[in-house]
């Protein structure tokens, strides 16, 4: 690209704090017309937050936003829309009960009369290169088609700046290529697109320009010609090498497996069809088996079946007890926010606990026990009587983990155990899981962050389209090999 014209969007010195987490530390970002701009960084680097600032969803603590001729300390979502900024989120933001056409009409303000609207939506989608049936109820669309709709909504609302948040995470490889084509066509006609991603190769393949964020700061800006993969990787990861914990945990290979599953089949939560089609695995005491999978491939059902939270339809499953389960959503599944910490500890406990006297609960004993747990797990809380809602996310997760691991489980199942936690809290959770394994538990953990799986696991299995598979090169499997398996499907 030669001498770029005036930028479409410029973010300068953006600062954002969430409590103790410093998400953005003076980040700068410039977007020129006609370019595909990759915003690269590890999970938690602040990529999404920075783009939400541009979309008006997050109000920065400091910094300026320049769009066109305007200069603002912050935008509202409405202003962002008027300046032609549209964001395609990782999660679907339409209304499932509406048809595709109705969702587009809601986003664009187009008149609702069905005939003309249908044609207009169909036309717009084809124009963009992402054909969609305007009459289909949105809830029935696949994840990929929902994303299509999000893009169509944004472009149809006259967006000139498209912010795409990890758009390839939910797509199959062929769909990824198609999406990149669409983005190129969009930028060729004068728009500009930001591709938020943590995948190096994707940035290299698609972007005209790359900005790398690390811990809320821009560490590298480069044009396509100047890019080299090693430099990018170093910029993203910084000086810290990825630690694999394999060596630190002693295997107890001679012991019988604590989890043994053969040909498990588990239904989808909606009740229709199979989420897990072929779930076979063994986990031995002392092992941490990491499950690598793209969202919605059956890993959730696998974990929940092992944890005894859903009944498999077919197959054999043997799990040694007691089982500890750390569910993904601590607010709605791990804890009851309105109840006290003691009550939340009692919630997850069985009948054999010392404070259970038949059907009676000795609350004093339970409270003493909870107080001990809070101390042992470094939970920052006013005391065992404090409601769970008064704790920070990291401390809430500590309570869940303390409750589950304090029962000396022989099996630990954890779903995204560090989602939404800062680095220190994440390290703490990892340490607890390793401790459990060292104490002889079989640990089965999934994280949607592949790097976390690689860091934590002694052995990695991939779940793709409902099938559990082991990488051919076993424990030596590389990130690329596992990534390819995740996306390939069986």
């Amino acid at each position: 690209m030669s001498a770029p014209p005036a930028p479409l969007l410029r973010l300068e010195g953006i600062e954002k704090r969430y409590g103790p987490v410093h998400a953005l530390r003076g980040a700068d970002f410039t977007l020129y017309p006609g370019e595909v701009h990759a915003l690269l960084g590890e999970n938690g680097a602040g990529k999404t937050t920075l783009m939400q600032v541009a979309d008006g969803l997050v109000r920065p603590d400091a910094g300026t936003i320049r769009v066109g001729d305007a200069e603002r300390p912050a935008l509202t979502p409405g202003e962002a829309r008027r300046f032609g900024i549209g964001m395609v989120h990782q999660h679907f933001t339409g209304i499932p009960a509406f048809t595709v056409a109705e969702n587009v009409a809601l986003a664009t303000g187009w008149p609702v009369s069905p005939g003309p609207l249908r044609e207009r939506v169909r036309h717009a989608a084809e124009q963009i290169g992402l054909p969609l049936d305007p009459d289909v109820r949105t809830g029935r669309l696949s994840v990929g088609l929902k994303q299509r709709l999000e893009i169509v909504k944004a472009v149809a609302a006259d967006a000139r700046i498209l912010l795409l948040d990890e758009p390839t995470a939910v797509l199959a490889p062929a769909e990824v290529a198609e999406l990149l084509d669409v983005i190129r066509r969009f930028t060729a006609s004068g728009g500009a697109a930001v591709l938020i991603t943590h995948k190096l190769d994707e940035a290299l393949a698609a972007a005209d320009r790359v900005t790398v964020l690390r811990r809320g700061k821009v560490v590298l800006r480069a044009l396509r010609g100047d890019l080299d993969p090693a430099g990018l990787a170093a910029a993203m990861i910084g000086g810290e090498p990825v630690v694999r914990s394999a060596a630190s945990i002693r295997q107890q290979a001679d012991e019988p497996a604590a989890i043994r599953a053969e040909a498990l089949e588990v239904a989808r939560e909606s009740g229709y069809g199979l989420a897990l089609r072929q779930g076979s695995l063994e986990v031995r005491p002392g092992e941490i088996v990491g499950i690598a999978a793209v969202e919605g491939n059956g890993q959730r059902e696998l974990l929940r079946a092992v944890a005894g939270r859903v009944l498999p339809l077919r197959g054999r499953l043997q799990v040694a007890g007691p089982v500890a389960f750390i569910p993904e959503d601590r607010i709605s599944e791990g804890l009851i926010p309105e109840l006290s910490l003691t009550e939340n500890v009692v919630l997850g406990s069985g009948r054999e606990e010392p404070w259970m006297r038949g059907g009676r609960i000795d609350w004093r004993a339970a409270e003493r026990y909870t107080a001990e747990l809070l101390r042992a797990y470094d939970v920052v809380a006013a005391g065992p009587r404090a409601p769970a809602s008064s704790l920070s996310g990291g401390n809430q997760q500590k309570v869940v983990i303390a409750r589950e691991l304090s029962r000396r489980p022989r099996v630990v199942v954890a779903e995204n155990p560090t989602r939404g936690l800062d680095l220190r809290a994440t390290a703490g959770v990892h340490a607890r899981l390793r401790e459990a394994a060292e104490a002889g538990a079989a640990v089965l953990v999934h994280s949607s962050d592949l790097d976390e799986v690689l860091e934590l696991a002694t052995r990695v299995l991939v779940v793709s389209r409902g099938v559990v598979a082991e990488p051919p090169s076993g424990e030596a499997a590389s990130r690329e090999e596992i990534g390819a398996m995740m996306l390939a499907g069986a």
Partner: protein
Amino acid sequence: MSGLEELTAGFLAAAVRVATPLLLAATGETVTERAGVINLGIEGMMLAGALAAALGASAAGPWTGVLVGIGAGTALALVFAAVVVGARGDQIITGTAVTLGAVGLTGMVYRQAYGTAGAGLNLPTLAALPVPGLREIPLIGPALFDQPAPTYIAIVALPIVWWCLFRTRAGLMLRATGESQAMARAAGVRTGLVRAVATLIGGAFAGLAGATLVLAQVGTFAEKMTAGRGFIAIAIVVLGRWHPAGVGLAALLFGAATALQFLFQTLGWDVPYQLFLMLPYGLTLLALAGLVGRVRPPADLGRG
């Protein structure tokens, strides 16, 4: 006309007459629920509308009664909306409270206005307005075209509400609010305002339904005279799958169930009348059981 034909025509006419207030209330509640608000207060709003209509009609004629009735229903809906939308109060309990309050208020006002003797039957009422020509259609002519004005209003309101809900931007925003307040807000909809307006529309319809009960059906007011019709209207909305066409059919079904009573009386069959009092409720429960698994309410219904 043969005897059977006359009987059928009479039955249909009674069914439509009984269905009219239910249909009006249910039409309003459809709008309210589509915006995500379930209003158990419409029972009270109907009752308030009924008494206000009786007072208005005896003071200045039946049409004034209708207007005053609508006003009373809307005023109570304003209280409901203030608590539910303004203060984010629980919808079910607020609705129960509004109905309780309306029972108390109407009891108080009624006793003061009419004494212990009651309103009597000397209320000016809305007479049937036969539509020339159409009235002569066999069977359905008398049922649909020889009725008091509110029936026509109810019949006309149905397609209008349908059109507004499904063919206008306002309707789209209203339905979006009922499905997901968060998403609707993100799309620029002022969801609080939408819910408040939808509640007021529901209240106005409930008031009109109450006025209809007094001025076009019973001819007088009595304490607690709505006898759960507001709650039945809510069930009708569920049965009608939150769609005006379905709601019209469900209301008619109800009217028919109640009108069976008159039919049986004409035929001289000796069935305890309480059976007919139970029939609509039992029928609703059966229909709900048969239907609910397959229908989906607005996703944000009842959420603050």
